[in-house]
C-alpha cells in the first residue's frame, strides 16, 4: 500500500504539470520577430545562412527554399540558438527571387507558417511569351503566299520599274517579270483565304466566311494595293512614252505602299515615323531587287545596252541602299525594342537570321561594285560573266531573305509581347461586410504592383486605417507572406515592389483594419501568368 502511494506521490507533480500545461496550451503561439535576409528585399550575393527569430523557442516542422524556376529544396541543416533558428543555405543559389517557406511549431504544438521572399541580384521576371496554336498547313500556306507576294512586289513591280525607268536600254527580263507578277498575284489572292482561315481559327478555304474574314482584316488593303501594283506593272511595257513611264512609277509606288498598309511594323507607334519607314524600305527594296535579274540576264546575254544599264544602276544604287538601310534600322529599333529581345524572342531570332543573310548580300554587292563593275562596264567578258554569276548568287540570297522576312508573320514583335505581358490580372473578393476589387499589374511572375479598391456591402467606398495583402501559394509550397499597402490620393490602397516569384494560382487575402477594434479579411485567388 505504502509503495503504491509512494509511486502515486512521484506521479503527482507530473499530473499537476500536465494540468498546468493544458492551460498554457490554449494560448501559446509564437510569432516571427525578425529575419535575415529581411522579407521582400534584394541582396547582392546569395546568403550563406538564413536566420528566423521568433518571440519564443520553436522547432521547425518544414523548411524549404523555392527557387525562381519553381523547384523546391528542403533545408535540413539548422540549429536553434535561444529563439533564433539558424538555417544553412544550400549551395548553388543563382540570381532571381527565392522564397524561404517555413513552418514551425511552438512548444505547445500550435503550428505557424510564413514565407520570406528575397531576391539575389535582381527580382526575377519571366520572359513574356504569347501562345500561338494554329494549323501548320494554314501557317505554311500563309508563309508561301507571303513569299510569293514579296516576289510579285519586288521582283515583279520593281522589275517593271527597273526595265522601264531605271534601265530602259535593256530588253531582257520581260518574261521573268511577267512570271513574277503572276506568282505575286496568285499569292496575293490565296493569302486572303489563308489569312481569313487563320483569323477565324476554323473553316476551309472553300467557305465564303473565310474569304470575307480575310478581306475584313487590314491585310486585305495590302492585297488590293499589291494587285493594283501588279496590274500597272503588267501594262507598263505595253504603253508607249509617258503613259508607260507613269505606269511603271505607279507600280513602284504601290509596291512600296502595299506593305505599309498592314502588319505589325506599320501599326507601331509613332505612326508618322513607322508607315513612311515601311514605305521607303519596301520601295528601296523594289528598286534594287527589281533591277537585279534583268541586269543579270542582260549581262549574261551580252546585250548592247548592258554596260549603260550597269552604269546607271551603279550610280543610283548607293542612295537607294542608304535609304533602305536607314529605314530598316528605324523599323528594327522600334520593333525589337531592347537588345535582349534579339535572342530571347522568336521575332528577334528571325531578325538575326535576316541580318546574317543581309551581311552576305551586302558582301556580294560590295564585291560586285568595287571588284567587278568597272571592268564589266569597260566591256571585259570575263568580268561580265563573273558579275552575272554574282548577281545570280545575290538573287538566291534575296530569296532566302524574303523567306526569313515572311516568317515574321508568325512572331509577334517584342513590342507587342511586352504590351500583352503587361496586361493586369484582377480579383474580386467579398464577405457579407465588405468587398474588394484587386488589380495586380503586370499579371505575370516577377515584380508586381497590387492595388485594391474597398467597398462596403452596400457598394459605398470604404475607409480603412490599414490594409495588408497576404500572398501564399500552397501548391508551390510557399507559406503566407505579408505586404503592407499605402493609401493613395484616390482612395485606393496600393503596394508596389511585391515580387511573386512563380506563375500559377496564388491565394491573396486582404486584411482591412476598419477601425482600431475591427478587422475584416477578404480572400480570393489570382492566376499569375508565366
Amino acid at each position: 500500500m505504502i509503495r503504491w502511494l509512494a509511486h502515486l506521490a512521484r506521479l503527482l507533480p507530473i499530473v499537476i504539470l500536465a494540468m498546468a500545461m493544458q492551460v498554457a496550451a490554449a494560448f501559446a503561439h509564437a510569432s516571427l520577430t525578425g529575419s535575415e535576409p529581411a522579407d521582400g528585399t534584394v541582396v547582392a550575393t546569395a546568403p550563406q545562412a538564413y536566420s528566423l527569430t521568433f518571440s519564443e523557442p520553436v522547432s521547425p516542422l518544414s523548411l524549404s527554399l523555392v527557387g525562381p524556376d519553381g523547384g523546391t529544396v528542403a533545408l535540413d541543416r539548422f540549429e536553434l540558438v535561444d529563439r533564433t533558428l539558424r538555417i544553412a543555405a544550400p549551395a548553388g543559389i543563382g540570381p532571381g527571387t527565392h522564397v524561404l517557406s517555413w513552418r514551425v511549431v511552438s512548444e505547445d504544438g500550435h503550428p505557424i507558417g510564413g514565407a520570406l521572399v528575397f531576391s539575389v541580384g535582381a527580382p526575377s521576371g519571366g520572359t513574356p511569351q504569347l501562345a500561338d496554336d494554329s494549323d501548320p498547313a494554314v501557317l505554311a500556306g500563309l508563309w508561301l503566299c507571303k513569299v510569293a507576294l514579296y516576289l510579285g512586289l519586288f521582283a515583279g513591280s520593281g522589275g517593271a520599274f527597273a526595265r522601264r525607268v531605271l534601265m530602259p536600254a535593256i530588253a531582257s527580263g520581260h518574261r521573268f517579270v511577267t512570271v513574277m507578277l503572276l506568282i505575286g498575284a496568285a499569292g496575293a489572292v490565296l493569302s486572303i483565304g489563308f489569312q481569313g482561315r487563320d483569323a477565324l481559327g476554323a473553316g476551309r478555304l472553300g467557305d465564303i466566311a473565310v474569304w470575307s474574314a480575310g478581306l475584313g482584316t487590314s491585310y486585305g488593303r495590302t492585297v488590293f494595293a499589291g494587285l493594283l501594283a501588279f496590274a500597272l506593272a503588267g501594262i507598263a511595257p505595253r504603253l508607249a512614252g509617258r503613259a508607260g513611264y507613269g505606269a511603271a512609277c505607279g507600280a513602284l509606288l504601290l509596291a512600296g505602299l502595299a506593305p505599309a498598309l498592314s502588319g505589325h511594323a506599320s501599326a507601331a507607334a509613332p505612326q508618322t515615323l513607322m508607315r513612311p519607314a515601311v514605305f521607303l524600305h519596301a520601295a528601296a527594296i523594289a528598286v534594287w531587287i527589281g533591277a537585279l535579274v534583268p541586269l543579270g540576264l542582260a549581262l549574261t546575254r551580252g546585250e548592247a545596252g548592258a554596260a549603260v544599264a550597269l552604269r546607271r544602276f551603279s550610280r543610283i544604287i548607293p542612295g537607294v541602299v542608304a535609304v533602305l538601310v536607314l529605314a530598316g534600322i528605324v523599323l528594327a529599333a522600334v520593333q525589337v525594342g531592347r537588345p535582349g529581345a534579339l535572342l530571347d524572342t522568336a521575332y528577334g531570332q528571325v531578325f538575326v537570321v535576316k541580318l546574317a543573310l543581309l551581311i552576305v548580300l551586302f558582301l556580294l554587292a560590295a564585291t560586285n561594285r568595287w571588284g567587278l563593275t568597272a571592268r564589266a562596264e569597260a566591256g571585259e567578258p570575263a568580268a561580265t560573266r563573273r558579275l552575272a554569276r554574282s548577281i545570280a548568287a545575290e538573287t538566291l540570297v534575296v530569296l532566302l531573305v524574303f523567306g526569313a522576312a515572311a516568317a515574321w508573320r508568325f512572331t509577334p514583335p517584342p513590342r507587342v509581347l511586352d504590351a500583352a505581358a503587361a496586361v493586369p490580372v484582377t480579383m474580386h473578393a467579398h464577405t457579407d461586410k465588405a468587398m474588394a476589387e484587386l488589380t495586380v499589374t503586370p499579371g505575370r511572375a516577377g515584380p508586381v504592383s497590387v492595388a485594391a479598391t474597398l467597398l462596403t456591402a452596400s457598394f459605398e467606398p470604404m475607409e480603412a486605417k490599414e490594409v495588408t495583402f497576404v500572398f501564399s501559394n500552397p501548391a508551390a509550397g510557399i507559406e503566407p507572406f505579408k505586404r503592407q499597402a499605402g493609401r493613395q490620393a484616390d482612395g485606393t490602397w496600393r503596394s508596389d515592389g511585391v515580387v511573386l516569384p512563380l506563375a500559377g494560382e496564388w491565394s491573396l487575402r486582404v486584411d482591412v483594419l476598419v477601425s482600431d477594434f475591427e478587422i475584416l479579411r477578404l480572400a480570393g485567388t489570382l492566376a499569375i501568368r508565366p
Partner: protein
Amino acid sequence: MNKLILAAGALLLAAAPALAHVSLEKGEAPVGSTYKAVFRVPHGCEGLATNVVRVRIPEGVIAVKPMPKPGWTLEKIKGKYARTYDYYGTPTGEGVQEIVWKGGNLADDEYDEFILRGYITPDLGVGSTLYFPVVQECGADKAERWIEIPAEGQTSDDLELPAPGVTLIEKTGGH
C-alpha cells in the same frame, strides 16, 4: 522516472513564458454578477515594448471600473450603451466603453496584468462567449490587435488575432 519528471519540469518552465496572446485569467463568469477581468499581457509587439493597452468593453457589460497601475495613466472613454440596463435598481444607459492604460513601458521579456471590473448583465446568453477586444500599442506605429471574434462554426484557435473571451455560465446564488 526521475528523468521524466525532470523533462516535464523543464518543459513547464520553458512553457510558462510561451503565452503569446493577450488572454483573460478567468475563462468563465456567471451572468448577472460582477466579473473581475484580468488581462494577461505576455509579449510586446514583435519584440518591442508595450506602451499602451486599450480594452473595448463589449455590449452588455456595464459599470466598468479599471484598476490603476503605477507608471501608467488611465483613461476611461464613456459612451451610450445600446439600451438601458437595470443595475441593482438603477437604470443605466451610458458608461465606460473603452479603457486605455497609456504611458507605460512593458518590455517584451516582461509580463503584466491589466485589471478591470464590470457587471455582466443577466440578459446575456448563458453558454455564449463574451469577447473583449484588446489592442497593444508599441511605440508610434506598431500594434498587436487581439480583436478577431470567431464567426459561426469557428473557434478562437482558428484565428490569427483572437480577442480574449469569457464563457458565460449560470447565475450563481448570492448578491
